[in-house]
């Protein structure tokens, strides 16, 4: 039953990839069917879990012994509990909607079958990641996600920028992957096991340094996969992929993996104050950095990508708060999955109607041309900036509240982030749907077909009611309590005070954006005379330049030095040896000089030698 969750999309990917062109006509329906059936299996699992008491909800399912080497025992086991099922439902639910959307979005692409195969592979890898019962198997899913993201980001590989973006995502992720593999090794050394339960049980006996190191390694892994500072640079370039891929990466899969990893490894972070602080700091930096980048982007998808960075920063920050924040991190992750998917699909729909133009300065006044997109995007917008009672309000408010409970500076950072979020989302909204039309002459905006708008509507409903439902109907924090534990923080500010403040900040941000971009005409070409900060934000806060200066150039020189050492040193030695042998052979060849008498002498020498030996023996 649990294995079927992973098996169905994997089967879909296998059939589509091995089936080749003969599956072209029905492949996309098949992929949707596989993803949808995985969703239904997930729902069935969820229902059966609801039927059990809280303590019996976690189920272990060991399929077979995977690796058994001495004391290193890794089962191929699946583990489903309250945390996993939340992810399963998000991944398969949102994933299926994105699948359906892609039928319309990719209808003119000749490689649509391959695209769906990769989507299925992505979903399968992500499900393996969240369903594994040990860190080693999780690592397999982790790498599978990396592979699928690489394939999808560089899906339009005929564009050099897409190919480079895919490569970049892969390479940057690799840095994080090294962190995860180090973490797994350290776990084995420290605890002698890599299963979740085993590590959780043994964690409190381990020494602080080991825990700290494991925590840092896990944080590095999470930074890579979730595009956290300083490994954030791939996320903006990943927008080169088709929009459904962006939606999938940003909402349901991939970037959520880092949050999952930290929450899943809560046993380690609970015990290491230092590691938790590092997580909080990284989360805070990223949430501000992402928001900052989002404010200056004219590319609608890149603006949303900055927003994702920022929102994931919220989640990481919440996860770093410890037992107080784990549930809120997951809460925000789920609501974010709903509204961010809706926003991305909406952006895709806008692009679809605007001839794949992504520059918001060429939009404007689209609210009349695309009514459905306008409404769904607008609901997602309200959700993300945190207007009550939309989804984002509930989860973000909880995080801000918990952050203030921890530390006032962190709290202020989250508050500022909320304001900036309101600013750039309003800016996006205003530039896209309001103001006067700034379209190119030959562009005729039109609404997308139903197959694309239907998933957007579903997600819009989620954006509206997701937060309410999860908080009051689902009781998300008590639901997750058996897995991640529960902690009460001493609140310096009560919710009654904080909520009005938050709403005021959000309103201020939104109003400022509206005044700047909604009321005044937006220039079609981005103004060149801008402040230093704007320029930095437009350049992704110079993340690429820093990477290039700090890692790429020294690495280049190191590589050159190593190549030199390899070719002159190691190869030189080998070649010298070969040359020596060749030279000796060339000399030895001279023995074969063609003179019969020389050969005769050799024979005579041999005979003399034999005689000598016989003589010795006889003596």
């Amino acid at each position: 039953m649990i294995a079927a969750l992973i098996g169905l999309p994997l089967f879909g990917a296998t059939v589509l990839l091995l089936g080749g062109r003969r599956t072209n006509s029905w492949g996309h329906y098949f992929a949707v069917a596989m993803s949808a059936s995985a969703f239904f299996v997930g729902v069935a699992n969820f229902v059966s879990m609801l039927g059990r008491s809280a303590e019996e909800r976690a189920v272990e399912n060991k399929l077979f012994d995977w690796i058994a080497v001495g004391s290193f025992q890794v089962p191929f086991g699946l583990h489903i509990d309250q945390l996993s099922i939340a992810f399963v439902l998000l991944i398969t639910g949102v994933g299926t909607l994105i699948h359906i959307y892609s039928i319309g979005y990719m209808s003119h692409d000749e490689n649509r079958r391959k695209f769906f195969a990769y989507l299925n592979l992505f979903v399968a890898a992500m499900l393996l990641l969240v369903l594994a019962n040990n860190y080693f198997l999780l690592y397999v899913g982790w790498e599978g996600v990396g592979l699928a993201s690489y394939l999808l980001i560089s899906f339009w590989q005929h564009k050099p920028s897409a190919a480079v973006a895919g490569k970049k995502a892969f390479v940057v992720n690799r840095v994080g992957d090294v962190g995860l593999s180090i973490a797994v090794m350290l776990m084995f050394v420290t605890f002698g096991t890599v299963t979740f339960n085993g590590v959780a049980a043994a964690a409190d006996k381990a020494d602080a340094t080991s825990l700290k190191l494991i925590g840092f390694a896990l944080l590095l892994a999470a930074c890579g996969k979730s595009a956290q500072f300083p490994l954030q640079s791939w996320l903006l370039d990943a927008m080169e992929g088709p929009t459904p891929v962006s939606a999938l990466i940003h909402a349901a899969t991939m970037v959520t993996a880092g949050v999952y990893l930290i929450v899943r490894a809560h046993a380690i972070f609970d015990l290491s104050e230092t590691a938790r602080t590092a997580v909080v700091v990284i989360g805070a930096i990223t949430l501000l950095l992402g928001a900052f980048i989002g404010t200056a982007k004219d590319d609608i998808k890149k603006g949303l990508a900055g927003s994702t960075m920022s929102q994931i920063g919220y989640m990481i920050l919440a996860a770093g708060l410890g037992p107080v924040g784990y549930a809120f991190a997951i809460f925000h992750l789920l609501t974010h999955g709903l509204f961010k998917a809706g926003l991305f699909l909406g952006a895709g729909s806008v692009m679809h109607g605007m001839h794949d133009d992504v520059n918001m300065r060429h939009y404007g006044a689209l609210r009349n041309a695309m009514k459905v997109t306008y409404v769904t995007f607008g609901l997602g917008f309200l959700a993300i900036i945190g207007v009550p009672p939309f989804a984002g309000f509930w989860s973000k408010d909880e995080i801000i509240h918990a952050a203030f409970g921890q530390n006032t500076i962190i709290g202020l950072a989250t508050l500022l982030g909320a304001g900036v979020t309101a600013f750039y989302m309003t800016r996006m909204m205003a530039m896209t749907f309001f103001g006067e039309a700034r379209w190119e002459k030959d562009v005729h905006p039109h609404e997308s077909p139903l197959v694309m708008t239907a998933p957007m509507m579903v997600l819009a409903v989620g954006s509206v009611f997701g937060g309410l439902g999860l908080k009051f109907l689902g009781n998300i924090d008590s639901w997750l309590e058996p897995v991640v534990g529960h902690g009460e923080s001493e609140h310096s500010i009560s919710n009654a005070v904080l909520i009005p403040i938050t709403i005021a900040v959000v309103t201020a941000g939104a109003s400022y954006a509206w005044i700047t971009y909604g009321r005044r005409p937006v220039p079609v070409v981005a103004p060149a005379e801008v402040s230093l900060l704007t320029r930095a934000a437009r350049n992704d806060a110079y993340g690429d330049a820093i990477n290039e200066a700090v890692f790429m150039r020294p690495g280049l020189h190191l590589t050159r030095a190593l190549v030199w050492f390899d070719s002159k040193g190691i190869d030189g030695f080998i070649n010298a040896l070969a040359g020596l042998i060749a030279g000796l052979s060339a000399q030895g060849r001279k023995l074969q000089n063609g003179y019969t008498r020389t050969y005769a002498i050799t024979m005579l020498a041999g005979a003399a030698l034999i005689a000598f030996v016989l003589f010795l023996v006889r003596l």
Partner: protein
Amino acid sequence: MNGESVVFWITAIFAVVGALGMIVSRKAVHSALWVAFAMVNLAVLYFTLQAPFLATTQIVVYTGAVMMLFLFVLMIVGVDSSDSLIETLKGQRLLATFFGLAFGGLLLSAIASTVALRNNGLDVANGDYGGNIQGIAHLIFNRYLLAFEVTSALLITAALGAMVLAHRERWTPRKTQIELSRERTHTSQVTPLPNPGVLARHNAVDTPALLPDGSPSQASLPQQFRETAQNDDASKEVTS
């Protein structure tokens, strides 16, 4: 000192002298004669070793047939050609001396240090079938029959091989007398070539004829003797 010893010491010394003569003679013909001399002496030794059949074969086959074959070939190659004794291969003499002496010394010292062999004599064996030849015949046609048959195959193969090696394929049709006469009238030499040795000191085939002015004529020699070393000797002899 009995008769055998006397014969042995004389023939042994002769054989060694013959062998040494072979390797120090500059002219191949002399070498061949020294070898023949050594082989005859060996034949005598075979008699003292109670092997009359071998001794006869040695004289008939080796000295008679094989050495004469050598002489034939020497005639073809040039009977008077003599080697220069300057060694051309670097270090050859040194190595040859060292290894040759080492081999010989070790071999001889090994033989010399063995206990004296018993001399069983062949009287009984020769007497079994009424004589040495009958005894050998019995062995050849009984115990060594297969080897004997194989040697016959070997001899046939060798004969065929020699024919193949010596054979020269004719690529052009044989010239007729008419063609030959025409050819001759087209050269400056219409009359027959002078015979070798005409007006010279002796009439060996490799001695050039002397022309009326006293100079030797290369044209009188067969192809393979022209422009070789001994002609200089001959001309020197003539001119002196």
